């Protein structure tokens, strides 16, 4: 046995590793099965109890494609022509004609709209600086400026969509940039087109909202806290007089007496901080109708868009008590820019407003010195600076960013109010959950049936050889899923088809080897020599045929999109896994068996 030790270890290690990668998928499956068995309130409680586990396993499991679990995929394209149109100054009839022409060209061409626009201007002998920047600027300058604006518009569009999707609470959304001007949004489990339309298609709303005074906020939160405590303790009434306030309370005790403050820590600035793990819980609380009654009608709680790392290494989100009515809307902003303040070497964001906005702004800031005004995009707070003085002339400066990156984000957000990125939905696919379940059932049924038939056939036709080949098929399946889990891959219906095909390829490799071994045995070779020869001679055929399949897979992955890529991915992984299991693993079985008892080995 000693001489096989290395190979056995390699195989055992790969099997264990695959199982390790697949463990979260299994756990996730178990947890959702348990959750499904519970009803209504119980299942909610179950989710609360296992929140961290569920999140952890979710992250590492094999994801199911939208075709299997239902959901929606939307491809957005930033309408660069509209952007170019919006950015232009001194628009005239000639400009309108150019834009009209470019719009038609864009529909037919793959060229970037900015290039087409420039080409059209040049064709008509119009200088770009007539409409953009300063008259002295060259066409190249303007061209770069427009390209840059187009790029920024895509970033802005992504930020707007991400912000909304985060608030919407979709689990595992995927938002990616595709090429220069496109954004792919995938929302598993979402099937309501209208909501998604709002989610991605609506114009962004940027508002400036005053925060409620800390005293008011404190009063409201205390009210909520007391209300929750009284509700919880109705079953076990407590005599509060017995508790001396001097004694340090244990966290459990505190949580019992202050159910709200235990998860939403109140700060001096009149806001609350909530750890990421409790965010959903607090959100659910604030949504309850009996809690809503405790919040004044002119106030609402808004979340910070981004979390911040606390001292304990956890991510904390801020809960802002804001006024419901906006002081000013973002349409008045004309420009925003993130820079480093040369005097203090601190990141700052400067913001310009139009005349009308400036007038309003000076009134608002003048009346609210030392109060905080939140910058709110689609209901999430990106910053809540304190007003230091009355701002006249519309030129404001926002400080207090941690780094330039944060400043850049604020710049994007402020511009989203000034220049909403015009996006078109160019592709939208939705699969209802019932169709997804149906697809899974049929996919698994056919995969199972096909595998069973193949396994049976192999055993009947090749006897021991067949059994070994069947083991190889099982290992192969395990490896494919393991690798898929490791890379965070997505399993789609075509992906399942890809796996079935790879299993066929794995079987083919063994068929090639066994047929060769049979031929060698017929020439009168000993079993051991026939096995050696069979493996050696079959190898080149297996290699060449697998390489060609591999090439097809790679090309498919490159040029395919969405579901086809899923197929290509499993095919690529499968080819590698099938060669390993069909050649390397089966060989160990035969070597050990021929060593121990030659009569065990039989190729039918």
């Amino acid at each position: 046995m000693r001489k096989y030790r290395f190979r056995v270890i390699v195989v055992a290690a790969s099997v264990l590793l695959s199982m390790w990668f697949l463990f979260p998928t299994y756990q996730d499956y178990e947890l959702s099965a348990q959750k499904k068995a519970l009803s209504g309130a119980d299942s909610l409680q179950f989710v609360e109890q296992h929140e961290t586990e569920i999140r952890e396993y979710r992250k590492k499991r094999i994801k199911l494609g939208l075709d299997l679990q239902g959901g929606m995929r939307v491809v957005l394209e930033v309408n660069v022509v509209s952007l170019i149109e919006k950015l232009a100054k001194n628009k005239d009839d000639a400009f309108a004609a150019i834009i009209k022409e470019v719009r038609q060209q864009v529909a037919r061409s793959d060229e970037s709209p900015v290039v087409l626009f420039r080409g059209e201007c040049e064709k008509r002998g119009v200088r770009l600086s007539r409409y953009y920047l300063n008259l002295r600027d060259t066409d190249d300058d303007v061209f770069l400026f427009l390209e840059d604006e187009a790029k920024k518009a895509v970033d802005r569009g992504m930020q707007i969509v991400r912000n909304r999707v985060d608030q919407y609470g979709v689990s595992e959304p995927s938002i990616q940039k595709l090429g220069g001007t496109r954004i792919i949004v995938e929302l598993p489990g979402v099937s309501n087109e209208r909501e998604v339309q709002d989610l991605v298609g609506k114009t962004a709303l940027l508002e400036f909202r005053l925060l409620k005074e800390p005293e008011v906020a404190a009063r409201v939160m205390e009210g909520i806290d007391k209300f929750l405590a009284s509700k919880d303790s109705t079953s076990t009434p407590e005599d509060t007089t017995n508790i001396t306030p001097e004694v340090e309370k244990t966290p459990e005790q505190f949580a019992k007496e202050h159910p709200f403050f235990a998860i939403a820590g109140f700060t001096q600035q009149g806001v609350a901080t909530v750890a990421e793990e409790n965010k959903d819980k607090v959100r659910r609380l604030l949504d309850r109708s009996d809690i809503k009654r405790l919040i004044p009608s002119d106030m609402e709680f808004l979340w910070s868009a981004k979390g911040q790392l606390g001292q304990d290494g956890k991510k904390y989100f801020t809960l802002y008590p804001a006024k419901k009515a906006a002081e000013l809307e973002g349409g008045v902003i004309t420009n925003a820019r993130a820079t480093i303040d040369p005097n203090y070497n601190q990141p700052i964001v400067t913001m310009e407003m139009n005349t009308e906005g400036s007038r309003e702004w000076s009134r608002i800031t003048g009346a609210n010195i030392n109060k905080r005004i939140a910058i709110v995009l689609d209901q999430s707070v990106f910053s809540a600076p304190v007003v230091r003085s009355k701002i006249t002339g519309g030129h404001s400066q926002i400080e207090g960013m941690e780094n330039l990156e944060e400043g850049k984000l604020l710049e994007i957000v402020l511009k989203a109010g000034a220049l909403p990125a015009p996006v078109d939905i160019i592709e939208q696919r939705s699969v209802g959950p019932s169709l997804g379940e149906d697809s899974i059932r049929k996919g698994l049924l056919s995969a199972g049936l096909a595998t069973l038939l193949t396994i049976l056939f192999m055993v009947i036709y090749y006897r021991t050889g067949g059994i070994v080949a069947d083991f190889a098929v099982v290992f192969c399946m395990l490896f494919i899923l393991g690798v898929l889990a490791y890379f965070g891959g997505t399993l789609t219906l075509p992906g399942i088809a890809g796996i079935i095909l790879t299993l066929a390829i794995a079987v083919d490799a063994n068929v090639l080897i066994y047929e060769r071994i049979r031929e060698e045995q017929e020439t009168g070779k000993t079993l051991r020599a026939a096995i050696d020869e069979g493996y050696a001679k079959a190898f080149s055929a297996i290699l060449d045929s697998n390489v060609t399949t591999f090439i097809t897979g790679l090309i498919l992955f490159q040029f395919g999109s969405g579901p086809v890529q899923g197929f290509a991915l499993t095919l690529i992984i499968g080819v590698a896994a099938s060669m390993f299991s069909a050649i390397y693993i089966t060989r160990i079985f035969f070597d050990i068996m021929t060593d121990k008892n030659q009569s065990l080995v039989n190729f039918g």
Partner: protein
Amino acid sequence: MRVFGKTTIDFLAYRKVFYFISAALITAGIVSLVVKGLHFGIDFLGGTELVVEFTREVEIGEVRSAMDKAGFGDAEIKTFGSNRDILIRTVKQGAGTTIGDQIREGVATHFKDNPFTVIKEDKIGPKIGAELQRDAYLAVFFSLVAICLYVAFRFKFVYGVGALIALFHDVLVTIGMVSIFDGLTPNLNLEISQNMIAAFLTLVGLSVNDTVVIFDRIRENKKIFRSMGLVELINKSLNETLSRTIITSGTIFVVLIVLFVFGGEVNSGFSFALVVGIITGTYSSIYIASATVVEWNERKARKKAA
């Protein structure tokens, strides 16, 4: 167990007959392509497509008149798996979900007492459709070229040519069959979608896989039987690999049949193309790929003699 013992079939003797059969199949396919054409799906045409699941079975004709009334006289309407599931598709384009909403409304007003849910809704802009189409052609083209180059590199140039011709043959035959069989029975929707393109590329992979195994045997026998004539050598190799060819292709065939029957509506076009592909792929390895090598050599010999 053994299905095939040693065989000594003179495969190549009948090759002219099979050229004729291939030519006939391809011609039939081309005629169908010209007359009937291919049925491009929404992926490539753009438009809006809804799959509506009714509570009770409905008549296709009823859905059609509902759509006519709603202003979608050009809409394509067919069943999607069962008679409760109806696919409605139009190439009309509209902003947002307007087209989808109109279709929904049309269905709702007509089938007041038969509640329905939309289980699938796709909307593809015309630009995306054109791009997907281009990418699909590129994918098929590049994989053919890459495979041809690899085979030419691993074997000899003429083998690469043989493999390439065989692949073109397989793709042509399959496209022809897809065109002929599309819509022959109400449940057979063989439209060209992204999944269908994946099927074509798999077919290419499987077909070349089979060809390579035979070429590999020819390459090996050539080294052993140096004095043997090419036709005899190829025949010998074909006979030696016959058992494997039948077993592998047979296994894959069964797998695909299972996928076709049980895999659901979404997979049916995919598995149909592959069922055709595995048959022509197996056959073309012998009568197209290997035969090309023979023809090439005979022509060279004739030239030398002349």
